[in-house]
Protein backbone atom coordinates (compact mmCIF):
# COMPACT_ATOMS: atom_id res chain seq x y z
CA UNK A 1 0.00 0.00 0.00
CA UNK A 2 1.46 3.28 -1.02
CA UNK A 3 1.45 5.72 1.87
CA UNK A 4 1.86 9.30 0.89
CA UNK A 5 2.08 10.81 4.33
CA UNK A 6 5.61 10.44 5.76
CA UNK A 7 4.66 11.76 9.19
CA UNK A 8 2.36 8.74 9.60
CA UNK A 9 5.40 6.49 9.44
CA UNK A 10 6.96 8.43 12.31
CA UNK A 11 3.87 8.06 14.44
CA UNK A 12 3.76 4.36 13.68
CA UNK A 13 7.31 3.87 14.86
CA UNK A 14 6.71 6.09 17.86
CA UNK A 15 3.71 4.02 18.98
CA UNK A 16 5.61 0.77 18.48
CA UNK A 17 8.59 2.06 20.41
CA UNK A 18 6.27 3.01 23.27
CA UNK A 19 4.91 -0.53 23.14
CA UNK A 20 8.36 -2.04 23.24
CA UNK A 21 9.24 0.23 26.16
CA UNK A 22 6.06 -0.66 28.04
CA UNK A 23 6.79 -4.32 27.55
CA UNK A 24 10.49 -4.14 28.33
CA UNK A 25 10.49 -1.67 31.19
CA UNK A 26 9.61 -4.09 34.02
CA UNK A 27 12.22 -6.51 32.77
CA UNK A 28 14.87 -3.83 32.66
CA UNK A 29 14.12 -2.63 36.16
CA UNK A 30 14.15 -6.21 37.41
CA UNK A 31 17.49 -6.81 35.78
CA UNK A 32 18.95 -3.58 37.17
CA UNK A 33 17.69 -4.40 40.63
CA UNK A 34 19.27 -7.82 40.43
CA UNK A 35 22.70 -6.26 39.88
CA UNK A 36 22.73 -4.09 42.99
CA UNK A 37 23.60 -4.82 46.56
CA UNK A 38 20.68 -5.46 48.90
CA UNK A 39 21.26 -2.24 50.79
CA UNK A 40 20.83 -0.13 47.66
CA UNK A 41 17.23 -1.23 47.42
CA UNK A 42 16.09 -0.72 50.98
CA UNK A 43 15.53 2.98 50.80
CA UNK A 44 15.13 5.62 48.17
CA UNK A 45 14.18 4.81 44.62
CA UNK A 46 15.21 1.85 42.51
CA UNK A 47 18.20 2.81 40.38
CA UNK A 48 17.78 2.70 36.61
CA UNK A 49 21.32 1.71 35.71
CA UNK A 50 22.95 -1.65 36.48
CA UNK A 51 25.11 -2.02 39.54
CA UNK A 52 28.21 -4.14 40.01
CA UNK A 53 26.83 -7.10 41.93
CA UNK A 54 25.58 -9.14 39.00
CA UNK A 55 27.74 -12.19 39.59
CA UNK A 56 27.53 -12.19 43.38
CA UNK A 57 23.75 -11.96 43.36
CA UNK A 58 23.19 -14.64 40.77
CA UNK A 59 25.77 -16.91 42.39
CA UNK A 60 23.99 -16.47 45.71
CA UNK A 61 20.51 -17.32 44.44
CA UNK A 62 21.58 -20.15 42.19
CA UNK A 63 23.82 -21.77 44.76
CA UNK A 64 22.29 -21.21 48.16
CA UNK A 65 18.98 -19.43 47.73
CA UNK A 66 17.52 -17.03 50.27
CA UNK A 67 18.03 -17.74 53.89
CA UNK A 68 14.71 -16.13 54.79
CA UNK A 69 12.69 -18.49 52.62
CA UNK A 70 14.33 -21.66 53.78
CA UNK A 71 17.35 -21.41 51.61
CA UNK A 72 16.34 -23.57 48.67
CA UNK A 73 18.89 -22.90 45.95
CA UNK A 74 17.23 -21.37 42.88
CA UNK A 75 19.32 -23.75 40.79
CA UNK A 76 17.37 -26.64 42.28
CA UNK A 77 14.05 -24.86 41.72
CA UNK A 78 14.96 -24.26 38.09
CA UNK A 79 15.80 -27.91 37.76
CA UNK A 80 12.41 -28.83 39.20
CA UNK A 81 10.70 -26.42 36.82
CA UNK A 82 12.61 -27.90 33.93
CA UNK A 83 11.66 -31.45 34.87
CA UNK A 84 8.04 -30.44 35.31
CA UNK A 85 7.86 -28.46 32.06
CA UNK A 86 9.57 -31.19 30.06
CA UNK A 87 7.45 -33.97 31.57
CA UNK A 88 4.26 -32.06 30.85
CA UNK A 89 5.29 -31.21 27.30
CA UNK A 90 6.50 -34.70 26.43
CA UNK A 91 3.66 -36.42 28.28
CA UNK A 92 0.95 -34.28 26.73
CA UNK A 93 2.32 -34.74 23.24
CA UNK A 94 2.74 -38.48 23.68
CA UNK A 95 -0.73 -39.24 25.00
CA UNK A 96 -2.49 -36.80 22.69
CA UNK A 97 -0.82 -37.96 19.52
CA UNK A 98 -1.71 -41.60 20.15
CA UNK A 99 -5.27 -40.86 21.18
CA UNK A 100 -5.75 -38.58 18.17
CA UNK A 101 -4.34 -41.37 16.00
CA UNK A 102 -6.86 -43.84 17.41
CA UNK A 103 -9.77 -41.45 16.94
CA UNK A 104 -8.88 -40.48 13.38
CA UNK A 105 -7.54 -43.73 11.94
CA UNK A 106 -9.77 -46.34 13.55
CA UNK A 107 -13.48 -47.02 13.68
CA UNK A 108 -14.35 -48.61 16.97
CA UNK A 109 -17.30 -48.73 19.33
CA UNK A 110 -17.42 -45.74 21.73
CA UNK A 111 -15.11 -43.74 19.49
CA UNK A 112 -17.24 -40.60 19.71
CA UNK A 113 -17.68 -41.11 23.45
CA UNK A 114 -13.89 -41.08 23.80
CA UNK A 115 -13.76 -37.92 21.74
CA UNK A 116 -16.26 -36.15 23.97
CA UNK A 117 -14.62 -37.32 27.17
CA UNK A 118 -11.40 -35.78 25.97
CA UNK A 119 -13.23 -32.64 24.95
CA UNK A 120 -14.66 -32.26 28.45
CA UNK A 121 -11.19 -31.64 29.88
CA UNK A 122 -11.26 -28.28 28.11
CA UNK A 123 -13.98 -27.23 30.49
CA UNK A 124 -12.34 -28.31 33.71
CA UNK A 125 -9.16 -26.32 34.35
CA UNK A 126 -7.28 -27.02 37.57
CA UNK A 127 -8.66 -23.85 39.10
CA UNK A 128 -12.22 -25.15 39.27
CA UNK A 129 -11.44 -28.50 40.88
CA UNK A 130 -8.63 -27.54 43.22
CA UNK A 131 -9.60 -29.42 46.38
CA UNK A 132 -10.85 -32.73 44.99
CA UNK A 133 -7.92 -33.01 42.59
CA UNK A 134 -5.56 -32.33 45.44
CA UNK A 135 -7.26 -35.12 47.37
CA UNK A 136 -6.85 -37.58 44.51
CA UNK A 137 -3.18 -36.77 44.19
CA UNK A 138 -2.75 -37.01 47.92
CA UNK A 139 -4.57 -40.38 48.07
CA UNK A 140 -2.36 -41.69 45.32
CA UNK A 141 0.69 -40.67 47.36
CA UNK A 142 1.86 -38.34 44.62
CA UNK A 143 2.38 -35.22 46.75
CA UNK A 144 5.94 -33.94 46.64
CA UNK A 145 6.94 -35.88 43.59
CA UNK A 146 7.68 -35.10 39.99
CA UNK A 147 4.82 -37.40 38.99
CA UNK A 148 2.43 -35.38 41.15
CA UNK A 149 3.67 -32.17 39.57
CA UNK A 150 3.23 -33.31 36.00
CA UNK A 151 0.90 -36.30 35.47
CA UNK A 152 -2.38 -34.58 36.49
CA UNK A 153 -1.69 -31.82 33.97
CA UNK A 154 -0.89 -33.93 30.94
CA UNK A 155 -4.40 -34.69 29.73
CA UNK A 156 -5.01 -32.10 27.08
CA UNK A 157 -7.87 -31.68 24.70
CA UNK A 158 -6.14 -28.91 22.75
CA UNK A 159 -3.16 -31.05 21.81
CA UNK A 160 -5.44 -33.93 20.84
CA UNK A 161 -7.52 -31.60 18.67
CA UNK A 162 -4.43 -30.18 17.02
CA UNK A 163 -3.18 -33.60 16.04
CA UNK A 164 -6.63 -34.67 14.93
CA UNK A 165 -6.84 -31.60 12.74
CA UNK A 166 -3.44 -32.32 11.26
CA UNK A 167 -4.12 -36.01 10.67
CA UNK A 168 -7.27 -35.12 8.76
CA UNK A 169 -5.15 -33.16 6.30
CA UNK A 170 -2.81 -36.09 5.61
CA UNK A 171 -3.84 -37.53 2.23
CA UNK A 172 -5.63 -40.88 2.38
CA UNK A 173 -3.45 -42.13 -0.47
CA UNK A 174 -0.42 -42.12 1.82
CA UNK A 175 -2.22 -44.50 4.13
CA UNK A 176 -3.24 -46.68 1.24
CA UNK A 177 0.25 -46.66 -0.24
CA UNK A 178 1.57 -47.75 3.14
CA UNK A 179 -1.00 -50.53 3.33
CA UNK A 180 -0.08 -51.73 -0.14
CA UNK A 181 3.56 -51.59 0.96
CA UNK A 182 2.56 -53.90 3.78
CA UNK A 183 2.62 -51.50 6.74
CA UNK A 184 0.21 -52.28 9.59
CA UNK A 185 -1.27 -49.59 11.84
CA UNK A 186 1.73 -49.33 14.15
CA UNK A 187 4.29 -49.25 11.38
CA UNK A 188 2.27 -46.62 9.54
CA UNK A 189 2.15 -44.53 12.69
CA UNK A 190 5.86 -44.80 13.43
CA UNK A 191 7.25 -44.70 9.89
CA UNK A 192 4.89 -42.28 8.17
CA UNK A 193 2.60 -40.32 10.45
CA UNK A 194 5.05 -39.47 13.23
CA UNK A 195 7.76 -38.14 10.88
CA UNK A 196 5.12 -36.12 9.04
CA UNK A 197 3.99 -34.58 12.35
CA UNK A 198 7.48 -33.31 13.23
CA UNK A 199 6.74 -29.61 12.79
CA UNK A 200 3.48 -29.86 14.68
CA UNK A 201 5.15 -31.75 17.48
CA UNK A 202 7.89 -29.13 17.68
CA UNK A 203 5.45 -26.23 17.66
CA UNK A 204 3.33 -27.87 20.31
CA UNK A 205 6.39 -28.65 22.36
CA UNK A 206 7.30 -24.96 22.50
CA UNK A 207 3.82 -23.99 23.67
CA UNK A 208 3.54 -26.81 26.19
CA UNK A 209 7.00 -26.20 27.59
CA UNK A 210 5.98 -22.65 28.38
CA UNK A 211 2.65 -23.86 29.74
CA UNK A 212 4.45 -26.25 32.06
CA UNK A 213 7.08 -23.75 33.15
CA UNK A 214 4.63 -21.01 34.16
CA UNK A 215 2.42 -23.32 36.26
CA UNK A 216 1.84 -21.77 39.64
CA UNK A 217 -1.26 -22.97 41.44
CA UNK A 218 -0.64 -26.66 40.91
CA UNK A 219 2.93 -26.81 42.30
CA UNK A 220 1.72 -24.62 45.13
CA UNK A 221 -0.82 -27.31 46.04
CA UNK A 222 1.17 -30.48 45.66
CA UNK A 223 4.54 -29.47 47.05
CA UNK A 224 5.23 -28.89 50.69
CA UNK A 225 8.73 -30.29 50.55
CA UNK A 226 11.06 -27.46 49.51
CA UNK A 227 13.18 -29.71 47.39
CA UNK A 228 10.25 -29.96 44.96
CA UNK A 229 9.52 -26.21 44.73
CA UNK A 230 9.46 -24.83 41.22
CA UNK A 231 10.98 -21.45 40.55
CA UNK A 232 7.71 -19.66 39.72
CA UNK A 233 6.12 -20.60 43.03
CA UNK A 234 9.45 -20.23 44.82
CA UNK A 235 9.45 -16.52 44.09
CA UNK A 236 6.20 -16.17 45.95
CA UNK A 237 7.80 -17.79 49.01
CA UNK A 238 10.60 -15.26 48.79
CA UNK A 239 8.42 -12.17 48.67
CA UNK A 240 6.06 -13.16 51.43
CA UNK A 241 8.62 -13.12 54.20
CA UNK A 242 7.17 -12.38 57.57
CA UNK A 243 7.77 -8.94 59.06
CA UNK A 244 10.52 -7.93 56.71
CA UNK A 245 11.08 -6.27 53.38
CA UNK A 246 11.90 -8.90 50.80
CA UNK A 247 15.52 -9.04 49.71
CA UNK A 248 14.63 -7.38 46.45
CA UNK A 249 17.97 -7.79 44.74
CA UNK A 250 17.80 -11.56 45.15
CA UNK A 251 14.07 -11.77 44.40
CA UNK A 252 14.61 -9.91 41.14
CA UNK A 253 17.55 -12.11 40.24
CA UNK A 254 15.27 -15.08 40.75
CA UNK A 255 12.53 -13.44 38.70
CA UNK A 256 14.98 -12.88 35.85
CA UNK A 257 16.04 -16.52 36.08
CA UNK A 258 12.38 -17.60 36.11
CA UNK A 259 11.70 -15.68 32.91
CA UNK A 260 14.87 -16.55 31.08
CA UNK A 261 14.19 -20.12 29.84
CA UNK A 262 10.66 -19.67 28.49
CA UNK A 263 11.40 -16.24 27.04
CA UNK A 264 14.50 -17.63 25.37
CA UNK A 265 12.38 -20.40 23.89
CA UNK A 266 9.87 -17.89 22.51
CA UNK A 267 12.52 -15.61 21.05
CA UNK A 268 14.73 -18.34 19.61
CA UNK A 269 11.94 -20.49 18.23
CA UNK A 270 9.61 -17.70 17.27
CA UNK A 271 8.35 -19.37 14.12
CA UNK A 272 7.40 -22.56 15.89
CA UNK A 273 5.98 -20.62 18.81
CA UNK A 274 3.64 -18.55 16.65
CA UNK A 275 2.59 -21.62 14.67
CA UNK A 276 1.91 -23.57 17.85
CA UNK A 277 -0.02 -20.74 19.45
CA UNK A 278 -2.20 -20.01 16.45
CA UNK A 279 -2.90 -23.65 15.65
CA UNK A 280 -3.73 -24.84 19.13
CA UNK A 281 -6.43 -22.20 19.27
CA UNK A 282 -8.08 -23.27 16.05
Amino acid at each position, binding site marked *: *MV*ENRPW*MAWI*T*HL*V*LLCGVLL*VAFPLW*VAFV*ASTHAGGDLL*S*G*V*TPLLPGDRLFENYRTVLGSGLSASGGVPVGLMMWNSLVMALSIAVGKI*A*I*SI*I*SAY*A*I*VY*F*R*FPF*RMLCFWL*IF*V*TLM*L*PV*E*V*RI*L*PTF*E*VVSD*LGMLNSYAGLS*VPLIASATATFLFRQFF*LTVPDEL*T*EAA*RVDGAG*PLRFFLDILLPLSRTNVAALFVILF*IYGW*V*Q*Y*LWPLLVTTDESFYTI*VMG*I*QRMVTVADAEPQ*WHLVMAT*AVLAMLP*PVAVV*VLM*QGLFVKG*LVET*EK
Partner: protein
Amino acid sequence: MHKRVTFRHPLLPYLLVLPQLAITFVFFLWPASQALYYSVLRQDPFGLKTKFVGLQNFERLFSDPTYLNSFDVTIVFSLSVTLSGMALGLLFAVMADRVVKGAATYKTLLIWPYAVAPAVAGVLWWFLFNPTIGILAYALRSLGYDWNHAVSGTDALILVIVASTWKQVSYNFLFFLAGLQAIPKSLIEAAAIDGAGPARRFWTIVFPLLSPTTFFLLVVNMVYAFFETFGVVHATTSGGPGQATTILVYKVFNDGFIGLNLGSSAAQSVILMVIVISLTMIQFRFIERRVQY
Protein backbone atom coordinates in the same frame (compact mmCIF):
# COMPACT_ATOMS: atom_id res chain seq x y z
CA MET B 1 -14.49 -34.88 9.46
CA HIS B 2 -13.72 -38.54 8.86
CA LYS B 3 -11.04 -40.52 7.13
CA ARG B 4 -12.02 -42.66 4.17
CA VAL B 5 -9.20 -45.04 4.96
CA THR B 6 -9.09 -46.60 8.38
CA PHE B 7 -7.38 -49.49 10.04
CA ARG B 8 -9.08 -52.42 11.65
CA HIS B 9 -7.86 -53.79 14.92
CA PRO B 10 -9.84 -55.18 17.82
CA LEU B 11 -7.63 -53.88 20.64
CA LEU B 12 -5.16 -51.30 19.43
CA PRO B 13 -7.43 -48.22 19.34
CA TYR B 14 -8.48 -48.80 22.92
CA LEU B 15 -4.88 -49.12 24.04
CA LEU B 16 -4.08 -45.88 22.27
CA VAL B 17 -6.82 -43.82 23.91
CA LEU B 18 -6.38 -45.50 27.28
CA PRO B 19 -3.64 -43.25 28.75
CA GLN B 20 -5.51 -40.08 27.97
CA LEU B 21 -8.84 -41.43 29.18
CA ALA B 22 -7.27 -42.76 32.37
CA ILE B 23 -5.79 -39.38 33.23
CA THR B 24 -9.01 -37.65 32.26
CA PHE B 25 -11.01 -39.91 34.57
CA VAL B 26 -8.69 -39.83 37.55
CA PHE B 27 -7.71 -36.17 37.52
CA PHE B 28 -10.59 -34.46 35.74
CA LEU B 29 -13.92 -36.27 35.82
CA TRP B 30 -13.65 -37.85 39.25
CA PRO B 31 -12.53 -34.64 41.02
CA ALA B 32 -15.18 -32.63 39.17
CA SER B 33 -17.85 -35.05 40.30
CA GLN B 34 -16.45 -34.88 43.83
CA ALA B 35 -16.75 -31.10 43.72
CA LEU B 36 -20.39 -31.51 42.70
CA TYR B 37 -20.92 -34.00 45.52
CA TYR B 38 -19.26 -31.89 48.22
CA SER B 39 -21.17 -28.84 47.11
CA VAL B 40 -24.37 -30.28 48.60
CA LEU B 41 -22.74 -31.41 51.86
CA ARG B 42 -21.68 -29.60 54.99
CA GLN B 43 -19.00 -30.60 57.50
CA ASP B 44 -19.15 -29.76 61.15
CA PRO B 45 -16.30 -27.52 62.35
CA PHE B 46 -14.24 -30.47 63.57
CA GLY B 47 -14.54 -32.35 60.33
CA LEU B 48 -16.15 -35.30 62.07
CA LYS B 49 -19.61 -35.34 60.58
CA THR B 50 -20.97 -34.47 57.18
CA LYS B 51 -24.59 -34.09 56.24
CA PHE B 52 -26.58 -33.45 53.12
CA VAL B 53 -27.75 -29.86 52.91
CA GLY B 54 -29.09 -29.58 49.39
CA LEU B 55 -28.51 -26.22 47.80
CA GLN B 56 -27.86 -24.50 51.10
CA ASN B 57 -24.19 -23.96 50.33
CA PHE B 58 -25.17 -22.07 47.20
CA GLU B 59 -27.84 -20.08 49.01
CA ARG B 60 -25.34 -19.10 51.66
CA LEU B 61 -22.82 -18.04 49.05
CA PHE B 62 -25.26 -15.77 47.30
CA SER B 63 -26.26 -14.13 50.54
CA ASP B 64 -22.66 -13.78 51.64
CA PRO B 65 -21.51 -10.17 51.07
CA THR B 66 -17.86 -11.19 50.76
CA TYR B 67 -18.73 -13.63 47.99
CA LEU B 68 -20.88 -11.11 46.18
CA ASN B 69 -18.09 -8.59 46.59
CA SER B 70 -15.71 -11.10 45.07
CA PHE B 71 -18.05 -11.41 42.11
CA ASP B 72 -18.01 -7.63 41.62
CA VAL B 73 -14.23 -7.52 41.90
CA THR B 74 -13.90 -10.30 39.35
CA ILE B 75 -16.15 -8.55 36.87
CA VAL B 76 -14.34 -5.22 37.16
CA PHE B 77 -11.01 -7.01 37.04
CA SER B 78 -11.70 -9.22 34.04
CA LEU B 79 -13.41 -6.53 32.00
CA SER B 80 -10.51 -4.16 32.61
CA VAL B 81 -7.91 -6.78 31.76
CA THR B 82 -9.76 -7.92 28.67
CA LEU B 83 -10.56 -4.52 27.25
CA SER B 84 -7.26 -2.81 27.96
CA GLY B 85 -5.25 -5.82 26.85
CA MET B 86 -7.19 -6.11 23.59
CA ALA B 87 -7.06 -2.35 22.92
CA LEU B 88 -3.29 -2.26 23.34
CA GLY B 89 -2.81 -5.47 21.39
CA LEU B 90 -4.89 -4.11 18.52
CA LEU B 91 -3.08 -0.77 18.54
CA PHE B 92 0.35 -2.36 18.34
CA ALA B 93 -0.81 -4.91 15.77
CA VAL B 94 -2.20 -2.20 13.48
CA MET B 95 1.04 -0.28 13.78
CA ALA B 96 3.23 -3.33 13.25
CA ASP B 97 1.14 -4.23 10.22
CA ARG B 98 1.93 -0.80 8.74
CA VAL B 99 5.67 -0.72 9.13
CA VAL B 100 7.72 -1.99 6.27
CA LYS B 101 11.14 -2.05 7.88
CA GLY B 102 11.72 -3.66 11.24
CA ALA B 103 8.34 -5.39 11.52
CA ALA B 104 9.99 -8.66 12.53
CA THR B 105 12.07 -6.94 15.20
CA TYR B 106 9.07 -5.19 16.71
CA LYS B 107 7.21 -8.47 16.71
CA THR B 108 9.97 -10.26 18.59
CA LEU B 109 10.24 -7.44 21.11
CA LEU B 110 6.49 -7.41 21.71
CA ILE B 111 5.65 -11.08 22.05
CA TRP B 112 8.02 -12.37 24.70
CA PRO B 113 5.93 -11.46 27.78
CA TYR B 114 3.66 -14.34 26.76
CA ALA B 115 6.31 -16.61 28.23
CA VAL B 116 6.35 -14.84 31.61
CA ALA B 117 4.42 -16.61 34.35
CA PRO B 118 1.50 -14.56 35.67
CA ALA B 119 2.94 -14.82 39.17
CA VAL B 120 6.28 -13.45 38.01
CA ALA B 121 4.54 -10.65 36.09
CA GLY B 122 2.73 -9.81 39.32
CA VAL B 123 5.95 -9.69 41.31
CA LEU B 124 7.64 -7.45 38.70
CA TRP B 125 4.87 -4.85 38.84
CA TRP B 126 4.57 -5.21 42.57
CA PHE B 127 8.19 -4.22 42.76
CA LEU B 128 7.74 -1.28 40.36
CA PHE B 129 4.83 0.02 42.45
CA ASN B 130 6.45 -0.69 45.81
CA PRO B 131 5.42 2.33 47.93
CA THR B 132 8.90 2.71 49.44
CA ILE B 133 11.33 1.99 46.67
CA GLY B 134 9.21 1.38 43.53
CA ILE B 135 10.08 3.68 40.70
CA LEU B 136 6.49 4.03 39.49
CA ALA B 137 5.22 4.77 42.98
CA TYR B 138 7.95 7.43 43.15
CA ALA B 139 6.88 8.89 39.83
CA LEU B 140 3.25 9.01 40.97
CA ARG B 141 4.26 10.63 44.23
CA SER B 142 6.09 13.37 42.36
CA LEU B 143 2.89 13.89 40.38
CA GLY B 144 1.05 14.33 43.62
CA TYR B 145 -0.57 10.90 43.96
CA ASP B 146 0.29 8.95 47.07
CA TRP B 147 0.30 5.37 45.79
CA ASN B 148 0.01 2.61 48.34
CA HIS B 149 -1.48 -0.70 47.32
CA ALA B 150 -0.98 -2.11 50.80
CA VAL B 151 -3.60 0.31 52.08
CA SER B 152 -5.70 1.39 49.15
CA GLY B 153 -7.97 -1.22 47.63
CA THR B 154 -8.24 0.74 44.40
CA ASP B 155 -4.46 0.93 44.06
CA ALA B 156 -4.18 -2.81 44.68
CA LEU B 157 -6.81 -3.63 42.09
CA ILE B 158 -5.10 -1.37 39.54
CA LEU B 159 -1.83 -3.12 40.29
CA VAL B 160 -3.14 -6.60 39.54
CA ILE B 161 -4.99 -5.32 36.48
CA VAL B 162 -1.83 -3.70 35.10
CA ALA B 163 0.28 -6.79 35.74
CA SER B 164 -2.31 -9.14 34.20
CA THR B 165 -2.81 -6.90 31.18
CA TRP B 166 0.92 -6.46 30.61
CA LYS B 167 1.36 -10.20 30.26
CA GLN B 168 -1.62 -10.62 27.94
CA VAL B 169 -0.92 -7.80 25.47
CA SER B 170 1.55 -9.96 23.56
CA TYR B 171 -1.06 -12.68 23.02
CA ASN B 172 -3.66 -10.24 21.70
CA PHE B 173 -1.02 -8.54 19.59
CA LEU B 174 -0.07 -11.81 17.90
CA PHE B 175 -3.61 -12.82 17.06
CA PHE B 176 -4.63 -9.36 15.86
CA LEU B 177 -1.51 -9.19 13.71
CA ALA B 178 -2.29 -12.59 12.18
CA GLY B 179 -5.87 -11.42 11.59
CA LEU B 180 -4.70 -8.20 9.94
CA GLN B 181 -2.27 -10.00 7.71
CA ALA B 182 -5.05 -12.29 6.55
CA ILE B 183 -7.06 -9.35 5.18
CA PRO B 184 -6.49 -9.09 1.43
CA LYS B 185 -4.54 -5.95 0.58
CA SER B 186 -6.72 -5.47 -2.48
CA LEU B 187 -9.73 -4.71 -0.25
CA ILE B 188 -7.89 -1.89 1.46
CA GLU B 189 -6.59 -0.60 -1.85
CA ALA B 190 -10.09 -0.65 -3.27
CA ALA B 191 -11.30 1.39 -0.30
CA ALA B 192 -8.44 3.83 -0.80
CA ILE B 193 -9.43 4.28 -4.43
CA ASP B 194 -13.01 4.75 -3.31
CA GLY B 195 -11.65 7.72 -1.39
CA ALA B 196 -11.56 6.44 2.19
CA GLY B 197 -8.79 7.88 4.37
CA PRO B 198 -6.72 5.70 6.73
CA ALA B 199 -8.99 6.13 9.75
CA ARG B 200 -12.12 5.50 7.74
CA ARG B 201 -10.54 2.48 6.08
CA PHE B 202 -9.74 1.05 9.46
CA TRP B 203 -13.19 1.45 10.98
CA THR B 204 -15.26 0.54 7.93
CA ILE B 205 -13.14 -2.20 6.34
CA VAL B 206 -10.43 -3.56 8.60
CA PHE B 207 -12.20 -3.63 11.93
CA PRO B 208 -15.34 -5.42 10.69
CA LEU B 209 -13.18 -8.00 8.95
CA LEU B 210 -11.30 -8.52 12.19
CA SER B 211 -14.48 -9.27 14.11
CA PRO B 212 -13.94 -13.07 14.21
CA THR B 213 -10.52 -12.52 15.78
CA THR B 214 -11.93 -9.91 18.14
CA PHE B 215 -14.69 -12.17 19.32
CA PHE B 216 -12.35 -15.10 19.77
CA LEU B 217 -9.93 -12.96 21.80
CA LEU B 218 -12.78 -11.63 23.90
CA VAL B 219 -13.62 -15.13 25.09
CA VAL B 220 -10.01 -16.23 25.54
CA ASN B 221 -9.18 -13.10 27.51
CA MET B 222 -12.18 -13.58 29.78
CA VAL B 223 -11.06 -17.13 30.51
CA TYR B 224 -7.55 -15.85 31.17
CA ALA B 225 -8.74 -13.11 33.49
CA PHE B 226 -11.09 -15.45 35.37
CA PHE B 227 -8.73 -18.34 35.91
CA GLU B 228 -5.11 -17.89 34.96
CA THR B 229 -4.55 -14.69 36.90
CA PHE B 230 -4.61 -16.55 40.19
CA GLY B 231 -0.82 -16.30 40.34
CA VAL B 232 -0.84 -12.53 39.93
CA VAL B 233 -3.10 -12.07 42.93
CA HIS B 234 -1.67 -14.79 45.12
CA ALA B 235 1.95 -13.77 44.67
CA THR B 236 1.31 -10.09 45.34
CA THR B 237 -1.74 -8.74 47.14
CA SER B 238 -3.06 -12.03 48.53
CA GLY B 239 -6.55 -10.77 47.82
CA GLY B 240 -6.17 -7.68 49.96
CA PRO B 241 -6.21 -5.13 51.26
CA GLY B 242 -9.53 -6.11 52.76
CA GLN B 243 -11.18 -8.07 49.97
CA ALA B 244 -10.26 -5.57 47.26
CA THR B 245 -8.47 -8.01 44.98
CA THR B 246 -10.15 -11.28 45.97
CA ILE B 247 -11.17 -12.63 42.59
CA LEU B 248 -13.34 -15.76 42.50
CA VAL B 249 -10.50 -18.17 41.78
CA TYR B 250 -8.51 -16.79 44.65
CA LYS B 251 -11.49 -17.15 46.96
CA VAL B 252 -12.02 -20.80 46.05
CA PHE B 253 -8.44 -21.50 46.91
CA ASN B 254 -8.50 -19.44 50.06
CA ASP B 255 -11.76 -20.84 51.45
CA GLY B 256 -10.83 -24.38 50.60
CA PHE B 257 -7.16 -24.54 51.46
CA ILE B 258 -6.72 -21.89 54.09
CA GLY B 259 -10.23 -21.67 55.50
CA LEU B 260 -10.85 -25.42 55.04
CA ASN B 261 -14.52 -24.81 54.35
CA LEU B 262 -15.12 -27.84 52.19
CA GLY B 263 -18.77 -27.33 51.28
CA SER B 264 -18.46 -23.68 50.44
CA SER B 265 -15.30 -24.16 48.41
CA ALA B 266 -16.93 -27.00 46.47
CA ALA B 267 -19.99 -24.88 45.76
CA GLN B 268 -17.72 -22.10 44.51
CA SER B 269 -15.92 -24.61 42.31
CA VAL B 270 -19.23 -25.64 40.80
CA ILE B 271 -20.11 -22.02 40.04
CA LEU B 272 -16.72 -21.53 38.40
CA MET B 273 -17.28 -24.69 36.39
CA VAL B 274 -20.55 -23.31 35.12
CA ILE B 275 -18.78 -20.12 34.09
CA VAL B 276 -15.93 -21.86 32.29
CA ILE B 277 -18.30 -24.30 30.60
CA SER B 278 -20.44 -21.44 29.31
CA LEU B 279 -17.39 -19.60 28.01
CA THR B 280 -16.09 -22.76 26.32
CA MET B 281 -19.46 -23.43 24.75
CA ILE B 282 -19.63 -19.90 23.37
CA GLN B 283 -16.15 -20.31 21.99
CA PHE B 284 -16.94 -23.72 20.53
CA ARG B 285 -20.11 -22.56 18.83
CA PHE B 286 -18.14 -19.69 17.41
CA ILE B 287 -15.45 -22.01 16.10
CA GLU B 288 -18.06 -24.21 14.48
CA ARG B 289 -19.56 -21.21 12.77
CA ARG B 290 -16.19 -20.01 11.60
CA VAL B 291 -15.46 -23.40 10.08
CA GLN B 292 -18.54 -23.05 7.92
CA TYR B 293 -17.37 -19.82 6.34
